[in-house]
C-alpha cells in the first residue's frame, strides 16, 4: 500500500501534465471535428459532414490525399536516404578521415541556421532569373532550369536542402553512439583479423541500431509534421502541381485560410487532424513492428 502511494507520488505530476497538455487537446480536436466553427461565431454541430467533405469534395479530397502522399514520400526519403547518409557521415568521422573536425563542424553548422535563412539561401541559388545556379549554367552555356518551379526538380531540391540543413543532428547522435562502443570490442576484432568492412558491418552497424531507432522515431514525427521549409520555399499552396504540398499546409490553408468558403474553419481543420492521427497510428504500427527487431534484450 505504502509502495503504491510512492508510485502515485512520482506518476501524478507527469500524468496530470500529460493529460492536460496532450490527451485533452487531442480529445478536444476529435470533438471539434464534428462541428463547424470559425472561432468567432457559435459552433454548429454538423456530424460527419467535415469528414465527408474531406473525403469526397472534388477539390479538397485530391488536395488532401496528394498531401498525404507527399508526406509519406518524404518519410521514405528520410528513412532510406537521409538516415543512411547520416550514419555513413558519422562513420567517416568515427574512422577519423582527414580534417574530420573541420568537416564535422561544417556539416553540423547548417543545423543551427534558421529555416527562413536556409530558404533565403535556396532562393539566391535556385531563382531562375537572378539565382547563382542559372548564372553559372548560363556562363557555361548549359541549359538552365526553373528549379523550384519545375515539378521534376522541386522535391529533389527540397530533399537536398533537408539533407544539408538537418543531417547534422542525426549524424551527431550516430557519432556519439559509435564513440560509446567499447574500445576493447574493436581491439578484439582487430586481433581476430577483421578488416574495416567487417568491423563496420558486423560490429559498428548492429551496435548503432538503438540510436538508429531513436533517429527514425524523431524523423518520422518531423516528416509527418513538416511545414516551415516547404512553406517558405514555395508558398502555402505547395508550389507548381502541389509537389511540396504537405498535410500541415493543407491543414493551414483550410483551417486558418480563406480557402474553404472564404473563412476559417476550425472544425474542418480538426477533421484533417483526426484523419491524420489515423494515418500516424498506421505508420507508427508499421514502424514499431520494424523497430522492435532493433531492440536488445537486457
Amino acid at each position, binding site marked *: 500500500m505504502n509502495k503504491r502511494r510512492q508510485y502515485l507520488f512520482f506518476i501524478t505530476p507527469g500524468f496530470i501534465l500529460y493529460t492536460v*497538455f*496532450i*490527451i485533452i*487537446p*487531442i480529445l478536444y*480536436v476529435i470533438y471539434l471535428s464534428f462541428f463547424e466553427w*470559425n*472561432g*468567432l*461565431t457559435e459552433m454548429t454541430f454538423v456530424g460527419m459532414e467535415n469528414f465527408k467533405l474531406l473525403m469526397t469534395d472534388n477539390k479538397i479530397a485530391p488536395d488532401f490525399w496528394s498531401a498525404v502522399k507527399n508526406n509519406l514520400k518524404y518519410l521514405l526519403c528520410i528513412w532510406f536516404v537521409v538516415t543512411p547518409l547520416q550514419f555513413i557521415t558519422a562513420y567517416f568521422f568515427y574512422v577519423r578521415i582527414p580534417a574530420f573536425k573541420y568537416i564535422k563542424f561544417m556539416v553540423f553548422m547548417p543545423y543551427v541556421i534558421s529555416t527562413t535563412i536556409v530558404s533565403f539561401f535556396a*532562393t539566391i541559388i*535556385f*531563382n*531562375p*532569373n*537572378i539565382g547563382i545556379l542559372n548564372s553559372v549554367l548560363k556562363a557555361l552555356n548549359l541549359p*538552365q*532550369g*526553373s*528549379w*523550384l*518551379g*519545375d515539378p521534376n526538380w522541386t522535391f529533389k531540391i527540397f530533399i537536398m536542402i533537408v539533407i544539408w540543413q538537418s543531417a547534422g543532428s542525426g549524424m551527431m547522435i550516430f557519432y556519439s553512439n559509435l564513440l560509446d562502443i567499447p574500445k576493447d570490442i574493436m581491439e578484439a576484432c582487430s586481433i581476430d583479423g577483421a578488416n574495416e568492412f567487417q568491423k563496420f558491418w558486423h560490429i559498428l552497424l548492429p551496435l548503432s541500431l538503438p540510436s538508429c531507432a531513436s533517429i527514425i*522515431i524523431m524523423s*518520422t*514525427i518531423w516528416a*509527418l*509534421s513538416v*511545414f516551415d521549409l516547404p512553406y517558405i*520555399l*514555395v*508558398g*502555402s*499552396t505547395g*508550389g*507548381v*502541381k502541389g509537389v511540396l504540398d504537405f*498535410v*500541415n499546409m493543407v*491543414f*493551414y490553408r483550410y*483551417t*486558418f*485560410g*480563406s*480557402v474553404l*468558403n*472564404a*473563412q*476559417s474553419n476550425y472544425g474542418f481543420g*480538426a477533421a484533417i*487532424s483526426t484523419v*491524420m*492521427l489515423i494515418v*500516424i*497510428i498506421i505508420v*507508427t504500427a508499421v514502424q514499431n513492428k520494424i*523497430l*522492435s527487431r532493433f*531492440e536488445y534484450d537486457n
Partner: protein
Amino acid sequence: MKKKAISGLLCAALVTMLVGCGGGAPAANNSAPAETETANSGDTDTSPAPAEEKEAETASEASSASGALTIWEHNTSFEGSLESVVEGFKAKYPDIDVEYEFKEQDQYYNLLNIAIQSGDAPDVFWTNGTATNNMSELVKAGAVLGLSDFLDTKDIPENCMQIGTIDGTVYSVPWSCIDTRACYYNKDIFKENGWETPKTYDEFVKLLQTQKDAGYIPISLDPNSCWDLLFAYEPVLSAYDSEYTEGLADYSVKATDKPARDAMNEMLDWADKGYFGDNYLGVADEAAMVLTFTSGEAAMCLAGSWEANTFMDNNPNLNLGAFQIPDKNGKTGMVGTNANGFSVYSNSPNMDAAKLFIQYCATIEAQQAWVDGQGAVSGNPNVKSGSDIAGEIANADTTYTSWQSVLSNHVKEGENASTLFENDITKVFSKEMTTDEFFDEIEAVMQ
C-alpha cells in the same frame, strides 16, 4: 517503453498541428496598458479653420487618450506612407505609442483572422474594404467597429468612401488614391536599345519579341501569387479588349466572357514564347519578381501602382518609367479601384487612441501624406498626386473597373468567386488547369 515514447511524441506532433499553427500567429503588441495621463498640448489648435464640433469632441477625447496602438498593414510597399502618417499622428498625439507591422500579403487575412479569434487583434488594421468580402465577414463577426457615429469624412469624396461603407455604415477610412496597375519599364534599357513606349497593342506585343531577341526578359512576372498575376492580367485584359473591359463597370458583360478567356490565353502564349523568362515558373514570390526587374534582367514589369516605391527602394538608381498598355486603336485605360485604408478592432483595449488615429487618417494632412508616400495617383481633388511616376501612370484616356472587383460584386448569394480565383489562377499558369476550366468554375458561381 519505446511504444509509449513513440505514442507520446506522435501525439505531441498532432497537437502541434492544430495548436502550433494557431499559436504561430503573430500577437499584436498591446502591452502598454494605457496609463499615461495627457495627450498632446496644442492638439486642439492644430486643426485650423472650420473647427467643427466633432473635431472638438475628438480633440478633447485626445486629452485623456494615451496608450499603445498596434497597426497591421498587408504589404511592405506601404511602409513609406504609413511611416509618414504615423509621424503626422505622433506630432499631434505624442503620448500615444504607435507600432506597426507588415504581414505577408498572401497570408494577411489568415493572420488577421487568427489574431481576432485569439482576442489579440491589432487595434487598427487594413482590409480591402468592399473590394473583397473579407471586411464584410469581419463586420458580420462583430470584429470591426462602425465609424459613422464619430468619424468626420468631409475631406474624402463620396465615391472614395464607398469602398469603406457597408449598408450605410462606414467601417474603414479609405485613402484618396487610386490603386491602379501599370506597365513599369526601365528607361535606361529602353534608351540604350532605342525602344519607344508602344502606341498600340500590336506595337506592345511586337516590343515583347524585340526585347526577347535583345536578350532581356520582356516582363518580370511572379506566377506563384494570385495577386501578382491579377495585377498583370487586368491591364493586359483592358488593352486586349477595351470595349469588353468598359462593360465590366455596369456588368453588361460577364467576367467570364470570351475576351476575358482570350486575354488569359494570350498571356499563356506569351509565357510559352518566353516573354516572362524561359523559366519563369521558378520565380517563387513577389520579391523575386521585383528583383528581376530592378536588377535590369527584365525590361518591364506589370504591377500595382503601389510598387513604384518598392522598385525605387530596391534600386535607387533605377530610371523608372510607367505607361498604360494601349488598345489596338491606341486608347489607354487605367484599371483602378479606390484604395481602402484602416478599420478599428471592435474590442480594442486602446479604443480612444484607435479612434483618434482613424479620425486623423480622414484628414487632408494624412491623406496627402499617404498619397505622397505611395507616389500614388490621387483620387481626390484636394489631394495632389504623389510623384512624377504617378503622373505617368495616370496618363490614360479612361478608367476601367477591376475585373477582380466584379467577382466580388456580382457573385451569387452564398458563393465566393474570389476564393476560386485566389486558389486557381496560379494553376492556370502552371498548366494544372486550362483557361476554360478556370473560367467555367467561376462562371458557375457568378450571377
